[in-house]
């Protein structure tokens, strides 16, 4: 399986044409070419621990043609929604909404495409991208996005600026036979603070016939003392392949919260890299997956403690129905320099049907024993009969009791979503995922 990535659309022609169409400067084309070389050289999985658990057989790459040109839709919506600092909404191959509040604009916040930023503040983008430090150089998928992205987004919050209201990034895809390849760079200056909500939704063009592709990144740079809460909701249609790399570099005392929910897509492959470089930096990460049918959630998470007194607190939870599968692969590395680390990795799964499958590989590599904590924990179990009994004794029918327990298992992630509306939407999604007549309801 590990040699199964043959993307017919990948290659130098594609990369050069996109770069030329976007009138990119030479340094950015060189960036792409560096990434292309890595993409060509790298195997599908470089980590020997995980090679057995990569399964891309569901993807029909030959039937997909990625978008090459992505522009503004006619009449881009520029109204700022209530309670939001900034919004960018991409539907298939067009930017359908782009808006920013007056205060965010006044504070120097940037939420825009690479193409626009190259016209207005090229150095800002160059500083973030050049050298490829924002993505793992051993990951074929990350290097594919870095070389082939047809659209780039930059979100920048300047030094000392804290946004109370969230920034919303929305992606809608699903058109059969089409794919959107993107990068998103998120940089927070010294002592800056922001909340970002990323929504991944089915587009109106979704028909369910033929596959669609969304391939993207979240490349995060947190300056000293910066605080970022990032919430992601992936609810693509069942015909969609979703591939994402999220990568974060944290400087001194930076704080990062990831709250990521995967509900949709046929195949959802993600890799998260947290690099705790600065003293006292901390990442808290919660991921949930709720799979049904033949969905596969393939989630890899690397956390590298480099600076002293850093904290990594990682939790993933999966619930699987029908023939759904979850592959949760984790690696915590505590480097020799990382005295005083506190690191925890938890991977928990609930299988609700006989055909569902859960694989968890919570690994540790520790080079520095002077830790506050270095531990992992994992469990797989059915719904606790005692809990069902208790809820039924309170008057709930068995089926409702089961549903409550499952939704309660996932609630800690839902509660971390920064917008009340978005929280409610995610609850509704999870609720709707619960089948009325499947084996789980028995």
């Amino acid at each position: 399986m590990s040699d199964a990535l043959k993307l017919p659309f990948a290659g130098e022609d594609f990369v050069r044409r996109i770069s030329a169409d976007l009138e990119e400067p030479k340094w950015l084309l060189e960036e792409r070419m560096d990434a292309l070389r890595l993409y060509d050289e790298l195997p599908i999985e470089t980590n020997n621990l995980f090679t057995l658990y990569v399964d891309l057989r569901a993807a029909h790459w030959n039937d997909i043609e990625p978008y090459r040109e992505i522009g503004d839709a006619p009449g881009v919506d520029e109204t700022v929604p209530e309670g939001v600092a900034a919004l960018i909404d991409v539907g298939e191959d067009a930017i359908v909404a782009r808006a920013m509040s007056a205060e965010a604009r006044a504070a120097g916040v940037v939420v825009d495409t690479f193409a626009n930023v190259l016209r207005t503040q090229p150095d800002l983008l160059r500083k973030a991208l050049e050298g490829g430090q924002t993505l793992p150089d051993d990951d074929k998928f990350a290097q594919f996005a870095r070389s082939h992205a047809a659209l780039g987004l930059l979100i920048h919050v300047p030094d000392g600026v804290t946004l109370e209201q969230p920034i919303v990034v929305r992606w809608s895809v699903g058109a059969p036979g089409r794919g959107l390849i993107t990068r998103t760079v998120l940089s927070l200056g010294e002592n800056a603070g922001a909340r970002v909500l990323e929504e991944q939704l089915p587009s109106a063009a979704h028909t369910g016939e033929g596959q669609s592709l969304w391939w993207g990144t979240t490349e995060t740079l947190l300056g000293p003392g910066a605080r970022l809460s990032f919430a992601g909701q992936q609810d693509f249609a069942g015909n969609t392949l979703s591939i994402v790399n999220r990568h974060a570099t944290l400087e001194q005392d930076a704080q990062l919260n990831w709250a990521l929910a995967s509900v949709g897509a046929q195949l959802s492959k993600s890799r998260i890299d947290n690099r705790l470089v600065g003293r006292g930096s901390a990442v808290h990460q919660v991921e949930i997956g709720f799979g049904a049918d033949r969905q596969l959630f393939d989630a890899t998470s690397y956390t590298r403690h480099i600076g002293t007194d850093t904290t990594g607190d990682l939790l993933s939870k999966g619930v699987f129905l029908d023939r759904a599968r979850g592959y949760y692969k984790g690696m915590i590395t505590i480097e020799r320099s990382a005295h005083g680390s506190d690191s925890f990795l938890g991977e928990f799964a609930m299988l609700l049907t006989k055909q569902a499958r859960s694989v968890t590989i919570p690994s540790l590599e520790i080079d520095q024993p002077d830790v506050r904590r270095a531990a992992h924990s994992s469990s797989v179990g059915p719904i606790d009969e005692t809990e069902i009994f208790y809820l039924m004794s309170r008057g709930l029918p068995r089926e409702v009791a089961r549903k409550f327990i499952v939704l309660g298992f996932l609630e800690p992630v839902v509660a971390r979503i920064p917008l009340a509306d978005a929280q409610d939407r995610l609850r509704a999604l999870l609720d709707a995922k619960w089948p009325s007549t499947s084996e789980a309801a028995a």
Partner: protein
Amino acid sequence: MTLSQRQMVDNDRSRFDFKDEIVYLTETKRGLTRETVEEISAIKEEPEWMTKFRLRAYDHFLKRPLPTWTDGLDRIDFDKIMYYRKPSEREEKSWDDVPDQIKNTFERLGIPEAERKFLSGVGAQYDSEVVYHSVKEELSKIGVVFMGTDQALKEYPDIFKKYFGTIVPPEDNKFAALNSAVWSGGSFVYVPKGVEVPLPLQAYFRINGENTGQFERTLIVVDEGAKVHYIEGCTAPIYATDSLHVAVVEVIALANSKVRYTTIQNWSNDVYNLVTKRAHAYENSTVEWIDANTGSRKSVKYPSIYLRGRGATADIISVAVAGKGQHQDTGAKAIHLAPDTRSRIVSKSVSKDGGRASYRGQLKVAPGATGVVASVRCDALMLDDESRSDTYPYIDIQEDDTTMTHEATVGKISQDQIFYLMSRGLSENEAQNLIVQGFLEVFTKELPMEYAIEFNRLVKLEMEGALG
């Protein structure tokens, strides 16, 4: 990190190692060829099926690439290894008949004493052949077979052929193939239906001779309702060039039986110790691997239990101590293939003086294995900044009513604990030693008393060696 913890260097293991000059009566040329394999089989006057088995394994060994998921195996020079040596011409039944030179080595390992006091049977392996063997008369009377594997092939051909190579086929992995091609010695145990062996069966064996490979093969068949405890332990002399120990252990636990297999591995620091140990557990049987690795340059060993019958139980305790220059890549596997099966894996590792201890394990629940309860616990203690500890667990669950928990922790000895013990009058060294022994107690408490004492002594020596 205290000063004295940092001083833990120069872990001299030579105190456990000594070597005698042996006159070898038969040996093969260095390196592995088809002819070597045929020659081994011919010297042993084996039946044709075994010669064919060896050659099939040899072909697979050549084809199979070295595993890449662990490092350093490419340093083994298979052409420098001597694949067969036979130190004495016949199987010995009585201690008095064993040649003096070999006996001296065993004396220094404490075997005769152990034999007199505790043993119900001894199979001691000196290089590639069983040279000393005795089974207490009463065990023979109740039908328990305990002898060298080569001898069993001749004396119990039917039961041998029925089970040999069925638990670990040559194609299982590269080193199982190598062992299958050149195997020599090891123990064969058969316990008949309903028989409970009242005392542990023990086999000491050791490598001697530079560049000698040791490829013993152990086959244990425990019939329905029977019960046995098998113990092995080993030491080896230090040499400058690499030695190789590639063993295969196959255990069959038939319905309602109970098997415990205890190992204390203490090869010298130049030995690559690559062992495939696997048991099949049938209905309501219990298999226990109690496995400690303190020696070798690199150990690759994951005692495995395939739970094939309803209600079977697997219990694995894996202990590793990695000192200077050592990598213990050890762990355990529990593969649940039948309903209502249970497994428990406990791993404890200590790394120090730049050693590396890696836990690698697998827990699998196959479709159809309903009602499984499984737990895995891994704890690692690192005694200094130069050492390393890894945990690589694989958990693959394909049944919805499985109950599985896994926990792992890595840490150092807390200064509070040391301080407390020192306030009670212990030296710092004694305090550390006590904490390490306490950490490993989950293992030592499962050992017969004399082994527990020996093991604690070993740990103490290691700690003292480190603290100088």
